């Protein structure tokens, strides 16, 4: 995975949602484990406390039965026999010095001078962890670090001595280990399942959104007929797709309507206008020697010519936009075409003392319509000459890269402000400062239609020192 796709992934909403959910799951696993552990531990402790109380009651019994001696004897005996390895009795004298105990070894904490006093001060009950190694012989203990939980209680008996009973509760420790393992397993499980879920979620959402994105992009590039696939599942993506499609229907309807109207107007007005022109030419013959009338008729003929030219251009653009059949496509040499264009337009440039320099790389022939390409490139060069002030140069470059042949025409005119660049490609749009110069605002629309007809595109760039017009169409390397 490249860095870019990775950073895209991290930026994607679905990834962030998945990550958030995973953190929530992790937190709940931890909380549940802690809760379970705490519950079990307090239950075990409570049980052990009850047991310790029973032990003390039993010790009291021995005391009642045979006095301190009987208790000492009993503790001694238990110590000898090693019975109830989980139970510990310690008898302290009044000064808290141990007298007798049931275990051969006692943890040093227990034997500390202030142990029984501090335990008494804390209410007599003590709960602590102790390492097994301290309780038993090292040889018997499994693992150095093993610890046991001890629940104990100390009470003063009648003679003034203290009897201390403790129970080792190994379940607490094993529960702790058990819950720890569950916690670890749970975390791992959440991580694995969570990542998997996140991947599926991200992938599903991203794929569906990507589909919508892709279509939107193509629609933006002018392919208004495209629609997003709808699966009728009724989920939010489906509804989004349906709504977007309806929006596109509406847009297409409006755009089509606009085109249709302008095409119909052009088409329906063209025929009567042609007749008007015919009548005018006929009229011209009757005018005879009247110079003023001749000029007037001639002027009207020229004006109707101009109107007809606009209609023809409109219809030509409409024709190119509606067609996809490339019946007129042949192998053409774009370098030859651009040379012919320069040849045709050079005198016009020379009249303005404009120098056209041409740098043409070796390029592949491409499939296209040479007349349309000539017309498009001619229009571009014509524009360049029109807007370049006298004495300034025009540069033409023909290059090839990544399956595309580009013709780049750089003039020395005032350029087109960035925000206007898209607009000048629209039908009839003309920059304010160019309104007074001849032209009908259809030239660039036609160039764009021709580029698109060849599956290509045009791009305007440059700055105030000149407009850079690039005309790019694909070629197929054989």
């Amino acid at each position, binding site marked *: 995975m490249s860095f870019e796709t990775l950073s895209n992934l991290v930026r994607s909403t679905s990834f962030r949602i998945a990550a958030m959910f995973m953190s929530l799951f992790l937190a709940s696993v931890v909380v549940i484990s802690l809760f379970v552990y705490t519950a079990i531990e307090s239950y075990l402790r409570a049980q052990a406390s009850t047991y310790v109380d029973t032990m003390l009651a039993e010790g009291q019994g021995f005391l009642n039965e045979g006095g301190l001696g009987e208790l000492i004897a009993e503790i001694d005996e238990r110590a000898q026999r090693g019975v109830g390895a989980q139970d510990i009795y310690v008898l302290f004298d009044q000064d808290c010095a141990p007298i007798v105990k049931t275990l051969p070894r006692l943890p040093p904490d227990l034997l500390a001078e202030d142990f029984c006093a501090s335990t008494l001060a804390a209410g007599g009950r003590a709960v602590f962890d102790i390492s097994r190694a301290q309780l038993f012989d090292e040889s018997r203990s499994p693992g150095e670090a093993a610890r046991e939980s001890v629940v104990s209680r100390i009470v003063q008996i009648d003679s003034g001595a203290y009897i201390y009973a403790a129970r080792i509760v190994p379940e607490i420790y094993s529960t702790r280990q058990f819950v720890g393992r569950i916690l670890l397993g749970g975390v791992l499980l959440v991580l694995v399942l969570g990542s998997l879920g996140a991947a599926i979620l991200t992938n599903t959402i991203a794929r569906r959104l990507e589909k919508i994105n892709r279509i939107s992009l193509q629609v933006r590039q002018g392919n208004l007929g495209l629609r997003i696939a709808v699966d009728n599942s009724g989920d939010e993506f489906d509804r989004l797709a349906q709504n977007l499609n309806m929006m596109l229907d509406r847009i297409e309807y409006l755009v089509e309507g606009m085109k249709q109207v302008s095409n119909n107007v052009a088409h329906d007005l063209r025929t009567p206008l042609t007749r008007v022109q015919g009548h005018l030419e*006929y009229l011209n013959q009757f005018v005879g020697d009247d110079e003023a009338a001749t000029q007037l008729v001639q002027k009207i003929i020229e004006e109707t010519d101009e109107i*007809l030219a606009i209609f023809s251009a409109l219809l030509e653009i409409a024709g190119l936009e509606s067609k996809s059949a490339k019946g007129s496509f042949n192998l053409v040499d774009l370098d030859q075409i651009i040379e012919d264009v320069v040849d045709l337009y050079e005198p016009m440039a020379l009249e303005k003392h404009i120098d056209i320099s041409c740098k043409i790389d070796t390029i592949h022939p491409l499939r296209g319509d040479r*007349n349309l390409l000539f017309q498009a490139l001619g229009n571009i060069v014509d524009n360049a000459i029109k807007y370049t002030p006298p004495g300034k140069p025009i540069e033409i470059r023909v290059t090839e890269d990544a399956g595309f042949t580009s013709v780049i025409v750089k003039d020395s005119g005032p350029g087109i402000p960035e925000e206007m660049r898209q607009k000048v490609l629209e039908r009839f749009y003309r920059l304010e400062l160019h309104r007074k110069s001849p032209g009908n605002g259809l030239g660039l629309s036609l160039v764009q239609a021709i580029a698109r007809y060849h599956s290509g595109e045009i791009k305007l760039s440059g700055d105030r020192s000149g407009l850079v017009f690039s005309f790019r169409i694909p070629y197929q390397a054989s």
Partner: protein
Amino acid sequence: MRVLVIEDDQVVADYIGKGLREASHTVDHAADGKTGLFLAMSEHYDVIIVDRMLPAMDGLKIVQSLRAADNHAPALILSALADVGERVTGLQAGADDYLVKPFAFSELLARVEVLGRRHHGSRGFTESVLVVADLKLDLLSREAERGGRKIDLKPREFRLLEYLMRHADQIVTRTMLLEQVWDYYFDPRTNIIDVHISRLRRKIDEGSGPSLIETVRGSGYVIRDT
């Protein structure tokens, strides 16, 4: 010239017919394909103007049938189909020229006259030197001179002058020049051809007599031999 117009649209047919008669040509009209083909086969015409879409038989078919019958009367196809591909189809069928509707009548007239004259073995097609007034164009040595003064012409200017001289006394339109001299088919819609003509005119007229290349308002250019 005798011209046959095969066109089903009565208005267009009248418009063409009237114009051609004004230019002192004889015009026959057929309103459907079959009648048109019958007339074209049975009579002799200098030019046949045929609409592409016709009842009974379409224009392409008519031209194909004529050529198959070894009838080589020049044919001009009129069509509302503006596709460049359509032009190629028309020319492949054997037509000599192709004009897209709507057209200016002057454009049609210029083309019809050039076609008619060409068929009559007009000037220049076998000659190696073209002469118009005191202007001489040597097609072999690629040299031009007027009244003994050599004129230095660029290749394209030479072809432009050659075309004008081959059709001396005939009006040629800007579109015709773009087609014949530059070999591209579209309506230039700018004065770009005028610029070429005026440069050529300057070279030819420089210091010698009256201007030979005349501008015909609303139509095109003509080089006069008289």
